[in-house]
Protein backbone atom coordinates (compact mmCIF):
# COMPACT_ATOMS: atom_id res chain seq x y z
CA UNK A 1 0.00 0.00 0.00
CA UNK A 2 2.66 2.50 1.07
CA UNK A 3 4.96 1.43 -1.79
CA UNK A 4 2.15 1.91 -4.27
CA UNK A 5 1.56 5.44 -2.94
CA UNK A 6 5.28 6.15 -3.14
CA UNK A 7 5.51 5.08 -6.78
CA UNK A 8 2.39 7.08 -7.59
CA UNK A 9 3.94 10.10 -5.90
CA UNK A 10 7.15 9.74 -7.87
CA UNK A 11 5.34 9.19 -11.17
CA UNK A 12 3.20 12.26 -10.56
CA UNK A 13 6.26 14.37 -9.82
CA UNK A 14 7.77 13.40 -13.12
CA UNK A 15 4.54 14.02 -14.99
CA UNK A 16 3.36 17.35 -13.57
CA UNK A 17 6.57 18.95 -12.24
CA UNK A 18 5.97 21.90 -9.89
CA UNK A 19 2.19 21.58 -10.23
CA UNK A 20 2.33 18.17 -8.59
CA UNK A 21 2.56 19.42 -4.99
CA UNK A 22 -0.76 21.31 -4.97
CA UNK A 23 -2.37 18.52 -6.99
CA UNK A 24 -1.12 15.81 -4.63
CA UNK A 25 -2.27 17.85 -1.61
CA UNK A 26 -5.67 18.22 -3.21
CA UNK A 27 -5.86 14.46 -3.75
CA UNK A 28 -4.97 13.91 -0.10
CA UNK A 29 -7.60 16.39 1.06
CA UNK A 30 -10.27 14.70 -1.04
CA UNK A 31 -9.15 11.32 0.28
CA UNK A 32 -9.79 12.58 3.81
CA UNK A 33 -12.88 14.74 3.31
CA UNK A 34 -14.91 12.43 1.06
CA UNK A 35 -14.93 9.47 3.48
CA UNK A 36 -15.50 11.94 6.31
CA UNK A 37 -18.67 13.24 4.66
CA UNK A 38 -19.92 9.71 4.07
CA UNK A 39 -19.07 8.98 7.69
CA UNK A 40 -21.08 12.00 8.80
CA UNK A 41 -24.07 10.89 6.73
CA UNK A 42 -24.01 7.39 8.16
CA UNK A 43 -23.31 8.60 11.68
CA UNK A 44 -26.71 10.30 11.60
CA UNK A 45 -28.28 7.00 10.62
CA UNK A 46 -26.25 5.13 13.24
CA UNK A 47 -27.38 7.60 15.86
CA UNK A 48 -31.05 7.12 15.04
CA UNK A 49 -30.66 3.36 14.90
CA UNK A 50 -28.65 3.07 18.13
CA UNK A 51 -30.94 5.37 20.07
CA UNK A 52 -33.91 3.57 18.54
CA UNK A 53 -32.72 0.20 19.80
CA UNK A 54 -31.90 1.65 23.21
CA UNK A 55 -35.47 2.90 23.44
CA UNK A 56 -36.91 -0.42 22.15
CA UNK A 57 -37.78 1.02 18.74
CA UNK A 58 -36.47 0.05 15.33
CA UNK A 59 -35.41 3.42 14.01
CA UNK A 60 -35.56 4.38 10.32
CA UNK A 61 -36.23 1.27 8.22
CA UNK A 62 -38.28 2.45 5.24
CA UNK A 63 -35.76 3.97 2.82
CA UNK A 64 -33.62 1.22 1.38
CA UNK A 65 -32.72 -2.06 3.12
CA UNK A 66 -32.53 -1.48 6.91
CA UNK A 67 -32.99 2.23 6.24
CA UNK A 68 -29.54 2.45 4.71
CA UNK A 69 -30.55 5.09 2.17
CA UNK A 70 -32.13 7.31 4.82
CA UNK A 71 -29.18 9.80 5.03
CA UNK A 72 -29.31 10.29 1.26
CA UNK A 73 -33.04 10.94 1.39
CA UNK A 74 -32.50 13.42 4.23
CA UNK A 75 -29.73 15.15 2.34
CA UNK A 76 -31.81 15.48 -0.82
CA UNK A 77 -34.75 16.80 1.16
CA UNK A 78 -32.61 19.49 2.79
CA UNK A 79 -30.98 20.34 -0.52
CA UNK A 80 -34.29 21.11 -2.18
CA UNK A 81 -35.70 23.16 0.67
CA UNK A 82 -35.78 26.90 0.49
CA UNK A 83 -33.24 28.88 2.52
CA UNK A 84 -35.20 31.56 4.30
CA UNK A 85 -33.32 34.67 5.33
CA UNK A 86 -35.25 36.44 8.07
CA UNK A 87 -36.03 40.13 7.72
CA UNK A 88 -33.86 42.30 9.91
CA UNK A 89 -31.10 39.69 9.87
CA UNK A 90 -27.59 40.49 8.79
CA UNK A 91 -27.57 38.86 5.38
CA UNK A 92 -23.84 38.35 4.86
CA UNK A 93 -23.13 37.05 8.34
CA UNK A 94 -26.27 34.91 8.27
CA UNK A 95 -25.04 33.10 5.17
CA UNK A 96 -21.40 32.87 6.22
CA UNK A 97 -22.08 31.47 9.73
CA UNK A 98 -22.79 27.84 8.72
CA UNK A 99 -19.66 27.88 6.57
CA UNK A 100 -17.62 29.15 9.50
CA UNK A 101 -18.89 26.28 11.63
CA UNK A 102 -18.00 23.62 9.11
CA UNK A 103 -14.62 25.06 8.05
CA UNK A 104 -12.63 24.44 11.28
CA UNK A 105 -14.26 21.03 11.69
CA UNK A 106 -12.76 20.03 8.34
CA UNK A 107 -9.50 21.99 8.62
CA UNK A 108 -8.50 20.20 11.81
CA UNK A 109 -8.30 16.91 9.91
CA UNK A 110 -5.15 18.15 8.17
CA UNK A 111 -2.87 16.91 10.95
CA UNK A 112 -4.67 13.72 11.99
CA UNK A 113 -2.43 10.68 11.37
CA UNK A 114 -4.39 7.65 10.17
CA UNK A 115 -1.48 5.25 10.11
CA UNK A 116 2.30 5.42 10.19
CA UNK A 117 3.12 8.52 8.11
CA UNK A 118 -0.42 8.75 6.76
CA UNK A 119 -1.60 12.31 7.29
CA UNK A 120 -2.27 15.30 5.04
CA UNK A 121 0.41 17.33 6.83
CA UNK A 122 2.97 16.24 9.40
CA UNK A 123 3.04 19.35 11.58
CA UNK A 124 5.34 19.62 14.59
CA UNK A 125 2.89 21.77 16.52
CA UNK A 126 -0.04 19.52 15.51
CA UNK A 127 -1.65 19.47 18.92
CA UNK A 128 -1.65 23.27 19.11
CA UNK A 129 -3.07 23.46 15.60
CA UNK A 130 -5.91 21.14 16.63
CA UNK A 131 -6.65 23.26 19.69
CA UNK A 132 -6.64 26.43 17.60
CA UNK A 133 -8.94 24.96 14.96
CA UNK A 134 -11.45 23.51 17.41
CA UNK A 135 -11.57 26.85 19.22
CA UNK A 136 -12.59 28.57 15.97
CA UNK A 137 -15.78 26.54 15.66
CA UNK A 138 -17.56 28.72 18.19
CA UNK A 139 -17.58 31.68 15.80
CA UNK A 140 -20.11 30.06 13.51
CA UNK A 141 -22.45 29.55 16.42
CA UNK A 142 -22.06 33.08 17.78
CA UNK A 143 -22.39 34.73 14.40
CA UNK A 144 -25.40 32.59 13.52
CA UNK A 145 -27.08 33.53 16.76
CA UNK A 146 -26.40 37.21 16.37
CA UNK A 147 -27.10 37.55 12.65
CA UNK A 148 -30.47 35.77 12.93
CA UNK A 149 -31.96 38.73 14.79
CA UNK A 150 -33.96 36.38 16.96
CA UNK A 151 -34.07 36.15 20.74
CA UNK A 152 -33.92 32.37 20.95
CA UNK A 153 -31.04 32.21 18.52
CA UNK A 154 -29.18 34.88 20.46
CA UNK A 155 -29.70 33.13 23.79
CA UNK A 156 -28.41 29.93 22.26
CA UNK A 157 -25.35 31.71 20.90
CA UNK A 158 -24.54 33.25 24.28
CA UNK A 159 -24.90 29.93 26.06
CA UNK A 160 -22.77 28.22 23.50
CA UNK A 161 -20.02 30.85 23.64
CA UNK A 162 -19.80 30.67 27.42
CA UNK A 163 -19.87 26.88 27.42
CA UNK A 164 -17.26 26.36 24.73
CA UNK A 165 -14.84 28.90 26.20
CA UNK A 166 -15.15 27.30 29.65
CA UNK A 167 -14.66 23.74 28.51
CA UNK A 168 -11.79 24.65 26.23
CA UNK A 169 -9.64 25.43 29.26
CA UNK A 170 -10.15 22.01 30.81
CA UNK A 171 -9.62 20.41 27.41
CA UNK A 172 -6.39 22.35 26.91
CA UNK A 173 -5.01 21.25 30.28
CA UNK A 174 -5.93 17.64 29.55
CA UNK A 175 -3.92 17.95 26.35
CA UNK A 176 -1.04 19.52 28.30
CA UNK A 177 -0.87 16.26 30.27
CA UNK A 178 -0.75 14.30 27.02
CA UNK A 179 2.07 16.37 25.64
CA UNK A 180 3.95 16.08 28.92
CA UNK A 181 3.65 12.32 28.77
CA UNK A 182 4.67 12.08 25.12
CA UNK A 183 7.06 15.06 25.18
CA UNK A 184 5.88 16.05 21.73
CA UNK A 185 3.13 18.05 20.07
CA UNK A 186 3.32 16.04 16.88
CA UNK A 187 0.31 13.73 16.79
CA UNK A 188 2.30 10.99 15.07
CA UNK A 189 4.92 11.12 17.83
CA UNK A 190 2.19 11.03 20.46
CA UNK A 191 0.95 7.72 19.03
CA UNK A 192 4.52 6.43 18.76
CA UNK A 193 5.02 7.30 22.44
CA UNK A 194 2.27 4.81 23.31
CA UNK A 195 3.95 2.04 21.39
CA UNK A 196 5.57 -0.78 23.32
CA UNK A 197 5.44 -4.44 24.21
CA UNK A 198 2.58 -3.96 26.65
CA UNK A 199 -0.06 -3.28 23.99
CA UNK A 200 -3.06 -1.46 25.39
CA UNK A 201 -1.41 -1.03 28.79
CA UNK A 202 1.04 1.34 27.15
CA UNK A 203 -1.68 3.70 25.99
CA UNK A 204 -2.02 7.01 27.77
CA UNK A 205 -5.51 6.40 29.08
CA UNK A 206 -3.96 4.41 31.93
CA UNK A 207 -1.59 6.98 33.46
CA UNK A 208 -3.85 9.85 32.42
CA UNK A 209 -7.18 8.21 33.20
CA UNK A 210 -8.79 11.30 34.82
CA UNK A 211 -7.64 13.36 31.85
CA UNK A 212 -9.16 10.81 29.47
CA UNK A 213 -12.52 11.25 31.19
CA UNK A 214 -12.19 15.04 31.30
CA UNK A 215 -11.27 15.15 27.63
CA UNK A 216 -14.15 12.92 26.64
CA UNK A 217 -16.71 14.89 28.64
CA UNK A 218 -15.28 18.25 27.55
CA UNK A 219 -15.40 16.93 23.99
CA UNK A 220 -19.10 16.21 24.36
CA UNK A 221 -19.55 19.74 25.71
CA UNK A 222 -17.45 21.27 22.92
CA UNK A 223 -19.53 19.64 20.23
CA UNK A 224 -22.75 20.82 21.90
CA UNK A 225 -24.03 17.28 22.19
CA UNK A 226 -26.49 15.93 24.73
CA UNK A 227 -26.34 16.11 27.74
CA UNK A 228 -24.53 19.42 27.18
CA UNK A 229 -26.70 20.67 24.31
CA UNK A 230 -27.91 23.79 26.09
CA UNK A 231 -27.04 25.80 22.97
CA UNK A 232 -29.88 24.02 21.17
CA UNK A 233 -32.12 23.11 24.09
CA UNK A 234 -35.25 22.28 22.08
CA UNK A 235 -37.43 22.31 25.16
CA UNK A 236 -36.20 25.73 26.32
CA UNK A 237 -35.07 27.81 23.36
CA UNK A 238 -36.58 25.82 20.47
CA UNK A 239 -33.37 25.03 18.58
CA UNK A 240 -31.01 27.67 19.89
CA UNK A 241 -28.60 29.31 17.52
CA UNK A 242 -29.91 27.65 14.35
CA UNK A 243 -33.61 28.22 14.92
CA UNK A 244 -33.86 30.56 11.90
CA UNK A 245 -31.94 28.33 9.51
CA UNK A 246 -33.57 26.10 6.94
CA UNK A 247 -32.59 23.89 4.04
CA UNK A 248 -28.93 23.49 3.22
CA UNK A 249 -27.81 26.23 5.64
CA UNK A 250 -29.24 24.16 8.47
CA UNK A 251 -27.71 21.03 6.97
CA UNK A 252 -24.26 22.63 7.18
CA UNK A 253 -24.68 23.09 10.95
CA UNK A 254 -25.76 19.50 11.13
CA UNK A 255 -22.75 18.34 9.11
CA UNK A 256 -20.40 20.41 11.28
CA UNK A 257 -21.79 18.93 14.48
CA UNK A 258 -21.25 15.38 13.30
CA UNK A 259 -17.87 16.17 11.70
CA UNK A 260 -16.82 17.63 15.06
CA UNK A 261 -17.98 14.49 16.83
CA UNK A 262 -15.90 12.33 14.51
CA UNK A 263 -12.96 14.67 15.03
CA UNK A 264 -13.18 14.45 18.82
CA UNK A 265 -13.46 10.67 18.50
CA UNK A 266 -10.34 10.60 16.32
CA UNK A 267 -8.43 12.83 18.74
CA UNK A 268 -9.44 10.77 21.77
CA UNK A 269 -8.34 7.61 19.97
CA UNK A 270 -5.02 9.13 18.98
CA UNK A 271 -4.13 10.73 22.27
CA UNK A 272 -5.48 8.27 24.81
CA UNK A 273 -6.29 5.03 23.02
CA UNK A 274 -3.12 4.49 21.03
CA UNK A 275 -4.25 5.65 17.58
CA UNK A 276 -3.37 3.08 14.96
CA UNK A 277 -1.67 0.69 17.42
CA UNK A 278 -3.15 -2.78 17.96
CA UNK A 279 -4.42 -3.57 21.47
CA UNK A 280 -2.12 -6.59 21.87
CA UNK A 281 1.36 -6.88 20.51
CA UNK A 282 0.77 -10.38 19.10
CA UNK A 283 0.56 -11.97 15.69
CA UNK A 284 -3.12 -11.81 14.66
CA UNK A 285 -3.50 -8.24 15.94
CA UNK A 286 -0.33 -6.77 14.48
CA UNK A 287 -1.18 -8.12 11.00
CA UNK A 288 -4.34 -6.02 10.75
CA UNK A 289 -3.67 -2.59 9.15
CA UNK A 290 -3.45 0.30 11.58
CA UNK A 291 -6.28 2.18 9.92
CA UNK A 292 -8.67 -0.55 11.04
CA UNK A 293 -7.65 -0.12 14.69
CA UNK A 294 -7.99 3.65 14.52
CA UNK A 295 -11.43 3.40 12.91
CA UNK A 296 -12.65 0.83 15.43
CA UNK A 297 -11.47 3.00 18.33
CA UNK A 298 -13.20 5.98 16.77
CA UNK A 299 -16.39 3.95 16.36
CA UNK A 300 -16.24 3.01 20.02
CA UNK A 301 -15.92 6.66 21.12
CA UNK A 302 -18.71 7.67 18.73
CA UNK A 303 -20.89 4.95 20.20
CA UNK A 304 -20.24 6.52 23.62
CA UNK A 305 -21.48 9.86 22.23
CA UNK A 306 -24.74 8.24 21.11
CA UNK A 307 -25.04 6.28 24.33
CA UNK A 308 -24.71 9.49 26.37
CA UNK A 309 -27.45 11.08 24.36
CA UNK A 310 -29.81 8.18 24.88
CA UNK A 311 -29.04 7.98 28.60
CA UNK A 312 -28.61 11.35 30.25
CA UNK A 313 -31.08 14.22 30.63
CA UNK A 314 -29.85 17.67 29.69
CA UNK A 315 -27.62 19.42 32.21
CA UNK A 316 -28.96 22.58 33.73
CA UNK A 317 -26.93 25.59 32.59
CA UNK A 318 -25.49 26.57 35.98
CA UNK A 319 -24.58 22.96 36.78
CA UNK A 320 -22.77 22.76 33.49
CA UNK A 321 -20.72 25.86 34.29
CA UNK A 322 -20.00 24.51 37.77
CA UNK A 323 -18.77 21.22 36.35
CA UNK A 324 -16.48 23.02 33.92
CA UNK A 325 -14.97 25.61 36.23
CA UNK A 326 -15.10 24.07 39.69
CA UNK A 327 -14.54 20.41 38.94
CA UNK A 328 -12.68 19.94 35.67
CA UNK A 329 -10.23 22.84 35.78
CA UNK A 330 -8.96 22.13 39.34
CA UNK A 331 -8.79 18.42 38.52
CA UNK A 332 -6.75 18.98 35.38
CA UNK A 333 -4.45 21.46 37.14
CA UNK A 334 -3.75 18.95 39.88
CA UNK A 335 -3.14 16.19 37.36
CA UNK A 336 -0.60 18.32 35.47
CA UNK A 337 1.41 18.53 38.70
CA UNK A 338 0.89 14.83 39.46
CA UNK A 339 2.08 13.78 36.02
CA UNK A 340 5.05 16.15 36.25
CA UNK A 341 6.09 14.70 39.60
CA UNK A 342 5.37 11.13 38.49
CA UNK A 343 7.57 11.52 35.46
CA UNK A 344 10.53 12.44 37.66
CA UNK A 345 10.31 9.13 39.55
CA UNK A 346 11.27 5.78 38.11
CA UNK A 347 7.70 4.51 38.37
CA UNK A 348 6.79 6.29 35.15
CA UNK A 349 6.56 3.38 32.72
CA UNK A 350 5.15 5.08 29.62
Amino acid at each position, binding site marked *: MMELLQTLHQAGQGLFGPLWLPLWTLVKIVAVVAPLMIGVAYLTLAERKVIGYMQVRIGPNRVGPYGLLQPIADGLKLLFKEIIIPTGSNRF*LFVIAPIMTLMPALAAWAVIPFDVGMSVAN*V*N*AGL*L*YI*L*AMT*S*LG*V*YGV*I*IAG*WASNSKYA*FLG*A*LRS*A*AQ*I*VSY*EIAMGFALVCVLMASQS*MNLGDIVRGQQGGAGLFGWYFIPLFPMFLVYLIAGVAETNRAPFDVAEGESEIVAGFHVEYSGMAFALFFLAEYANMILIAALTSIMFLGGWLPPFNMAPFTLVPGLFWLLSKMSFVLFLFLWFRATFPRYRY*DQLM*RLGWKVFIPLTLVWVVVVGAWMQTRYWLW
Partner: protein
Amino acid sequence: MNFETIVFYVFAALTVFAALRVITSRNPVHAALFLVLAFCSMAGIWMLLEAEFLAITLVLVYVGAVMVLFLFVVMMLDINLVQLREGFWRWLLFGAALAGLMAFEMIWVLGSSRIFAGRIAIKHAADYSNTKELGRLMYTDYVYPFEIAAVILLLAMVAAIALTFRRRKDAKSQAVAKQVAVRKADRLRLIKMPAENRARQGLDSTEEVAR
Protein backbone atom coordinates in the same frame (compact mmCIF):
# COMPACT_ATOMS: atom_id res chain seq x y z
CA MET B 1 8.11 37.15 -7.55
CA ASN B 2 7.82 33.76 -5.96
CA PHE B 3 4.82 32.14 -4.36
CA GLU B 4 5.73 33.17 -0.81
CA THR B 5 5.89 36.84 -1.76
CA ILE B 6 2.44 36.65 -3.33
CA VAL B 7 1.04 35.01 -0.20
CA PHE B 8 2.71 37.66 1.94
CA TYR B 9 1.18 40.52 -0.05
CA VAL B 10 -2.26 38.92 0.05
CA PHE B 11 -2.11 38.51 3.83
CA ALA B 12 -0.62 41.98 4.30
CA ALA B 13 -3.33 43.63 2.21
CA LEU B 14 -5.97 41.66 4.08
CA THR B 15 -4.52 42.74 7.44
CA VAL B 16 -4.46 46.41 6.46
CA PHE B 17 -7.98 46.24 5.06
CA ALA B 18 -9.33 44.47 8.16
CA ALA B 19 -7.54 46.84 10.51
CA LEU B 20 -8.99 49.84 8.67
CA ARG B 21 -12.46 48.37 8.82
CA VAL B 22 -12.07 47.78 12.57
CA ILE B 23 -12.01 51.52 13.13
CA THR B 24 -14.33 52.58 10.31
CA SER B 25 -17.23 50.14 10.51
CA ARG B 26 -20.27 51.55 12.25
CA ASN B 27 -21.47 48.36 13.84
CA PRO B 28 -19.29 47.33 16.81
CA VAL B 29 -19.96 43.64 16.16
CA HIS B 30 -18.66 44.04 12.61
CA ALA B 31 -15.64 45.86 13.99
CA ALA B 32 -14.91 42.98 16.37
CA LEU B 33 -15.28 40.47 13.54
CA PHE B 34 -12.87 42.47 11.38
CA LEU B 35 -10.42 42.39 14.27
CA VAL B 36 -10.73 38.60 14.19
CA LEU B 37 -9.95 38.68 10.47
CA ALA B 38 -6.94 40.91 11.15
CA PHE B 39 -5.63 38.43 13.74
CA CYS B 40 -6.10 35.51 11.36
CA SER B 41 -4.28 37.15 8.46
CA MET B 42 -1.54 38.28 10.84
CA ALA B 43 -1.17 34.67 11.94
CA GLY B 44 -0.74 33.81 8.28
CA ILE B 45 2.12 36.29 7.99
CA TRP B 46 3.80 34.90 11.09
CA MET B 47 3.44 31.44 9.60
CA LEU B 48 5.40 32.69 6.58
CA LEU B 49 8.13 33.77 9.00
CA GLU B 50 8.25 30.15 10.23
CA ALA B 51 7.05 31.27 13.64
CA GLU B 52 4.42 28.55 13.72
CA PHE B 53 4.15 28.47 17.51
CA LEU B 54 3.39 32.19 17.72
CA ALA B 55 1.02 32.04 14.77
CA ILE B 56 -1.03 29.18 16.18
CA THR B 57 -0.98 30.68 19.66
CA LEU B 58 -2.27 33.96 18.24
CA VAL B 59 -5.21 32.12 16.72
CA LEU B 60 -5.74 29.96 19.79
CA VAL B 61 -5.56 32.70 22.42
CA TYR B 62 -6.74 35.86 20.70
CA VAL B 63 -9.16 34.51 18.13
CA GLY B 64 -10.30 31.43 20.02
CA ALA B 65 -10.74 32.90 23.47
CA VAL B 66 -10.23 36.66 23.85
CA MET B 67 -12.27 37.74 20.84
CA VAL B 68 -15.06 35.32 21.69
CA LEU B 69 -15.48 37.03 25.05
CA PHE B 70 -15.14 40.39 23.34
CA LEU B 71 -17.93 39.55 20.91
CA PHE B 72 -19.94 38.13 23.77
CA VAL B 73 -19.85 41.50 25.52
CA VAL B 74 -20.20 43.69 22.42
CA MET B 75 -23.25 41.76 21.23
CA MET B 76 -25.04 42.27 24.51
CA LEU B 77 -24.35 45.99 24.71
CA ASP B 78 -26.94 48.42 23.48
CA ILE B 79 -24.62 51.00 21.98
CA ASN B 80 -25.86 54.42 21.06
CA LEU B 81 -23.76 55.51 18.09
CA VAL B 82 -24.65 59.21 18.40
CA GLN B 83 -23.43 59.26 21.97
CA LEU B 84 -20.23 57.52 20.94
CA ARG B 85 -19.48 60.04 18.23
CA GLU B 86 -20.13 63.06 20.42
CA GLY B 87 -16.60 63.68 21.61
CA PHE B 88 -14.95 62.97 18.26
CA TRP B 89 -13.78 66.50 17.38
CA ARG B 90 -12.88 67.37 20.94
CA TRP B 91 -10.54 64.39 21.32
CA LEU B 92 -9.31 64.31 17.75
CA LEU B 93 -6.18 66.38 18.40
CA PHE B 94 -5.19 64.31 21.43
CA GLY B 95 -5.82 61.04 19.59
CA ALA B 96 -3.91 62.17 16.53
CA ALA B 97 -0.95 63.21 18.67
CA LEU B 98 -0.95 59.82 20.39
CA ALA B 99 -1.18 57.99 17.06
CA GLY B 100 1.65 60.10 15.67
CA LEU B 101 3.81 59.33 18.70
CA MET B 102 3.18 55.59 18.33
CA ALA B 103 3.91 55.67 14.61
CA PHE B 104 7.11 57.61 15.28
CA GLU B 105 8.21 55.08 17.89
CA MET B 106 7.56 52.18 15.58
CA ILE B 107 9.44 53.76 12.70
CA TRP B 108 12.26 54.67 15.05
CA VAL B 109 12.63 51.12 16.37
CA LEU B 110 11.94 49.15 13.21
CA GLY B 111 13.66 51.54 10.86
CA SER B 112 16.86 51.91 12.80
CA SER B 113 19.76 50.30 11.04
CA ARG B 114 21.54 49.42 14.26
CA ILE B 115 19.07 46.77 15.38
CA PHE B 116 18.59 44.92 12.16
CA ALA B 117 21.93 45.61 10.49
CA GLY B 118 23.47 42.44 9.24
CA ARG B 119 20.66 40.26 10.52
CA ILE B 120 18.78 38.13 8.08
CA ALA B 121 16.16 35.49 8.77
CA ILE B 122 17.66 32.02 8.72
CA LYS B 123 15.72 29.30 6.97
CA HIS B 124 15.53 26.24 9.16
CA ALA B 125 15.15 22.62 8.20
CA ALA B 126 11.72 21.00 8.37
CA ASP B 127 12.53 19.13 11.59
CA TYR B 128 13.43 22.35 13.43
CA SER B 129 10.94 22.85 16.24
CA ASN B 130 10.12 26.47 16.83
CA THR B 131 8.12 25.55 19.92
CA LYS B 132 10.98 23.70 21.57
CA GLU B 133 13.41 26.57 20.98
CA LEU B 134 10.97 29.12 22.37
CA GLY B 135 10.34 26.97 25.42
CA ARG B 136 14.03 26.50 26.03
CA LEU B 137 14.71 30.23 25.87
CA MET B 138 11.70 31.16 27.95
CA TYR B 139 12.48 28.77 30.77
CA THR B 140 16.25 29.30 30.87
CA ASP B 141 17.55 32.70 29.75
CA TYR B 142 14.32 34.62 30.26
CA VAL B 143 12.81 32.71 33.14
CA TYR B 144 12.57 35.70 35.52
CA PRO B 145 10.97 38.17 33.07
CA PHE B 146 8.63 35.40 31.95
CA GLU B 147 7.55 34.49 35.47
CA ILE B 148 7.15 38.15 36.43
CA ALA B 149 4.97 38.75 33.39
CA ALA B 150 2.87 35.72 34.37
CA VAL B 151 2.43 37.01 37.92
CA ILE B 152 1.48 40.46 36.64
CA LEU B 153 -1.14 38.90 34.38
CA LEU B 154 -2.49 36.83 37.25
CA LEU B 155 -2.63 39.92 39.44
CA ALA B 156 -4.49 41.85 36.74
CA MET B 157 -6.95 39.00 36.36
CA VAL B 158 -7.65 38.74 40.09
CA ALA B 159 -7.91 42.52 40.38
CA ALA B 160 -10.35 42.75 37.47
CA ILE B 161 -12.59 40.12 39.02
CA ALA B 162 -12.35 41.68 42.48
CA LEU B 163 -13.23 45.13 41.12
CA THR B 164 -16.20 44.07 39.01
CA PHE B 165 -17.62 41.27 41.11
CA ARG B 166 -20.74 42.23 42.99
CA ARG B 167 -22.56 39.76 45.09
CA ARG B 168 -26.28 40.08 44.70
CA LYS B 169 -28.22 39.76 47.90
CA ASP B 170 -31.27 38.21 46.26
CA ALA B 171 -29.37 35.58 44.31
CA LYS B 172 -30.07 32.02 45.25
CA SER B 173 -27.70 29.20 44.59
CA GLN B 174 -27.36 25.62 45.61
CA ALA B 175 -24.78 24.48 48.11
CA VAL B 176 -23.66 21.43 46.22
CA ALA B 177 -21.55 20.07 49.07
CA LYS B 178 -24.63 20.02 51.30
CA GLN B 179 -26.69 18.37 48.58
CA VAL B 180 -24.11 15.63 48.19
CA ALA B 181 -23.78 15.18 51.92
CA VAL B 182 -27.50 14.51 52.37
CA ARG B 183 -28.29 10.99 53.49
CA LYS B 184 -31.51 9.07 53.24
CA ALA B 185 -32.14 9.35 56.96
CA ASP B 186 -32.20 13.18 56.75
CA ARG B 187 -35.09 13.31 54.31
CA LEU B 188 -37.03 10.08 54.65
CA ARG B 189 -38.63 8.49 57.66
CA LEU B 190 -39.96 4.97 57.40
CA ILE B 191 -42.83 4.16 59.73
CA LYS B 192 -43.94 0.68 60.53
CA MET B 193 -47.72 0.29 60.70
CA PRO B 194 -49.80 -2.77 61.31
CA ALA B 195 -51.77 -3.85 58.24
CA GLU B 196 -55.47 -3.02 58.27
CA ASN B 197 -57.97 -5.80 58.47
CA ARG B 198 -59.97 -5.16 55.31
CA ALA B 199 -62.51 -7.94 55.73
CA ARG B 200 -63.83 -6.31 58.85
CA GLN B 201 -64.48 -3.02 57.01
CA GLY B 202 -66.64 -4.78 54.43
CA LEU B 203 -64.33 -4.26 51.44
CA ASP B 204 -63.60 -7.30 49.37
CA SER B 205 -60.64 -7.62 47.03
CA THR B 206 -62.54 -6.91 43.75
CA GLU B 207 -63.69 -3.53 45.00
CA GLU B 208 -60.13 -2.69 45.93
CA VAL B 209 -58.92 -3.40 42.40
CA ALA B 210 -61.73 -1.33 40.86
CA ARG B 211 -60.69 1.68 42.87
